[in-house]
């Protein structure tokens, strides 16, 4: 086992070398191109395109065979595939622009009808003298493991071409993906650029189709890009990551299938890339599920803490003589459940904001807590004042509206609010509480 692993890793077999390097190049280029299609919300165009290539392959085979040539020659088949793939793309565009059918249905129509036609023609090709369809069927399932060096060179050339085009037109493609209308208004030839992008997709799809089969090429166009999106918001990093994920997936998958020759390499590559997606989905640094959950929870916790401190501050403010606040009072203050309040209090006391007398269930602010509570209350009231005076929000509603935003006010905004509200504030450092309590005549 170890020896075999070494053989695969050191690329000693010519055959393994070709397969692994070929797949890796394809994965790299497909990952790059996939980013643009994903951002243009056309992730499954590759799917429709790959299906639409089939009739072209069959027709090319039938035609050339009927003319007495070698129908199985690769350039002929690829030419056929490209032409019918472009037909497919054109049909999608016509359906989308000329009718009220939406993108998804247009893809479904082109995909199924073209593929149906392709199957028909393959069925007919089978009836020809030398038409056993083994060679043609590899377009559906792929033949990654039997890739030969000429295939790898073809993939390498096509990938290089796509990478060069995408990087050369990086700025244009970026604008096309994020703001097509703006790109148009800046005088970019949007239609031409779109066609260019589609051409790159066609090239990758057709080359990938031949090398690794239909389903795999869709996977390589979609999965790495979708994975990279979890890690970054910046296009350039997304592209780098997506290409690396695509390449790594191909390397790992192809290596695994080289070690376990029974397992189809195409499927192994998809699984390896899928694994990359799974990992990204959960732990992606920018939009991964865990980081999101953590972010939401820490925001909730900080909001809870701020509410608690403010509540305590206001209770003490109303009655400067009192020394502590009871559990019941706090429970009534907001719609906290017992469990939640207990957790909030626990955290606050652990962080040194409050001191508690456990036996009597009473709580007071520590010195540090009081400073913080004063700051928070002040921020809240400043914002309330601002809403009342500058946003015309009724004093009865202002608490709710202030609640929604006060937690994210930064010091600069607070300073700005202060200067805006100078007239209302006068010399006081702490604005008075503008709503219900003072309205009912309780001195604040």
């Amino acid at each position: 086992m170890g020896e075999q692993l070494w053989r695969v890793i050191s690329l000693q077999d010519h055959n393994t070398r070709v397969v692994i390097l070929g797949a890796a190049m394809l994965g790299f280029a497909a990952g790059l191109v996939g980013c643009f299609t994903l951002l243009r919300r056309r992730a499954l165009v590759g799917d429709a395109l790959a299906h639409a290539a089939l009739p072209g392959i069959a027709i090319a085979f039938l035609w050339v065979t009927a003319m007495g040539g070698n129908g199985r020659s690769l350039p002929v088949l690829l030419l056929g595939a490209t032409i019918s793939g472009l037909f497919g793309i054109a049909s999608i565009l016509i359906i989308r622009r000329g009718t009220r059918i939406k993108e998804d249905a247009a893809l479904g129509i082109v995909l199924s009808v073209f593929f149906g036609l392709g199957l028909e023609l393959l069925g007919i090709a089978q009836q020809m003298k030398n038409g056993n369809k083994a060679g043609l069927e590899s377009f559906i399932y792929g033949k990654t493991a039997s890739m030969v060096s000429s295939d790898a060179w073809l993939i390498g050339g096509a990938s290089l071409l796509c990478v060069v085009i995408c990087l050369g037109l990086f700025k244009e493609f970026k604008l096309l993906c994020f703001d097509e209308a703006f790109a148009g208004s800046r005088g970019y030839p949007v239609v031409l650029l779109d066609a260019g992008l589609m051409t790159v997709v066609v090239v990758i799809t057709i080359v990938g189709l031949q090398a690794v089969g239909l389903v795999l090429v869709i996977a390589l166009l979609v999965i790495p890009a979708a994975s990279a999106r979890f890690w970054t918001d910046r296009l350039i990093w997304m592209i780098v990551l997506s290409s690396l994920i695509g390449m790594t997936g191909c390397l790992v998958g192809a290596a695994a299938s080289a070690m376990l020759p029974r397992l189809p390499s195409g499927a192994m590559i998809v699984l390896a890339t899928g694994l990359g997606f799974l990992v990204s989905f959960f732990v992606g640094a920018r939009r991964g599920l865990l980081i999101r959950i953590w972010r939401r929870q820490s925001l909730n916790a900080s909001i809870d803490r701020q509410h608690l401190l403010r509540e305590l501050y206001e209770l003490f403010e109303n009655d400067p003589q009192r020394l502590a606040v009871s559990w019941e009072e706090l429970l009534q203050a907001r719609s906290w459940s017992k469990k939640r309040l207990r957790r909030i209090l626990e955290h606050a006391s652990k962080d040194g904001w409050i001191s508690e007398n456990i036996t009597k269930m009473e709580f007071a602010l520590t010195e540090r807590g009081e400073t913080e509570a004063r700051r928070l209350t002040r921020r809240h009231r400043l914002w309330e004042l601002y809403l009342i005076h500058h946003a015309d929000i009724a004093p009865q509603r202002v608490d709710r509206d202030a609640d929604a935003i006060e937690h994210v006010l930064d010091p600069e905004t607070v300073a700005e609010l202060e200067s805006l509200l100078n007239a209302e504030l006068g010399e006081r450092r702490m604005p008075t509480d503008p709503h219900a309590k003072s309205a009912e005549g309780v001195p604040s």
Partner: protein
Amino acid sequence: MIPPAQSGFDWSVDWSWQLDGWIVVAGMLCAVSSSLLGCFLVLRRMSLLGDAISHAVLPGLAAAFLISGTRSSGWMFLGAVIVGVLTALLSDWIHVRGEVDEGASMGVVFTTLFAAGLIMIVLAADRVDLDPGCVLYGAIESTPLDRWTISLPGLASVRVPRVVVVLSIVTLINAAFVLLFFKELKMATFDAELATSSGFSAKVIHYVLMTLVAVTAVACFESVGNILVVAMLVVPAATAYLLTDRLGMMIGLACVIGAVSAWAGHIAAVEVPTWFGFRSTTTAGMMAVATGAAFTLAVLFSPKRGLIPQWTRKQWLRWTILTDDVLALLYRMEERSTEERPLAESMAMREDLNAWMADILLTKRFAISLALKFHVWRRRVMDGRDNESATLVPTLTELGRSEAESLVRSHRLWEQYLVTRVDLEGDRIHQQAHRLEHFTDRQLQDRLDVQTDSPDKDPHGSPIPSANDPQP
């Protein structure tokens, strides 16, 4: 089937109820069951769900086999449906939770599952003979071979192909679902929020729909292959969507279109290859192609939205407007002629009358001469040549004059109306009136007349022709 010896095509088909009949029935059932749900998929922009599900069920089949150890269709069906529903749920979940584009989340899920399925099949290969190929092609041709004996009470027992029984059940379930929950489905499709606020969950409807799509896809693809499932789910529904605006009508049309495509597809699969000297080919693919043909016809010829009817309507409108304009222009020229300078003289002074008119009406010389010929043929205009007065100017006949008068009356009434009632500025009214005059009938003229207090002159000071009696 051997091509007939005589020249030309023999349109009669070698038809056997026992073979072709059941194949067509299976295809039609597949079409109807899919179309019933497909309409909602198309309207809710979930068209590719069928594609994703039918690719992804492979691991379900393999797992069912590995667990149960049999190739019994019940287990396979169950496994495939479970994975099918899982595909839908999983892509939904990734789409919502991960904020991944809908298409991309589907792509991730189905390709990964498909790959897992392939590997499971390979691993189990020594024990199972599952051909991934039949996932694509299906085996609709073998429909008649695998039969169940059904004994109905009071009837002799009949031997019906298993596929037909399964598809009938699925069709009935789908039809019942659509009929019973038509209102809810409609609301959930067009206004999910309204649906939720009126007391039932659009989400539940959504999930039931996805489950039924999975069941249908599995039932169909076992017999007809996954491409036909996608075709039947999407294409007939999209075709019907081009033909009608009403949901009920759309579903009905989709079912009919699907069924007819299935039938035509089978005939074509049997017949068309023989024209070129081949044997008949696979039916499933040809059925998909037939739905595509139906769709193409709808795109081109749908009465309301077809590209060709739309184009024709636009051309016809342009032509009507042009001929109207020519008539009205002649009337205005006549109107401006005076004793000292009769019409013929003032017109004959123009070197190239048609070019001059074309200039005024912003069109081509050729179009003007065509319009004039048209009017001559309709006896609205006298061509100068057969005119006694020997001038070469076109002049209005009585018939043409009264028609032109009506047009000009519309135009000037509109101008008057726009100035007095809409407060438009004088220099902007001509274009507006020019547009509206072509769509103004006698009734509207009279209403305009009343609204503007029956004026004699339009805002530019030209007389408004009085209403003439309608021509026979």
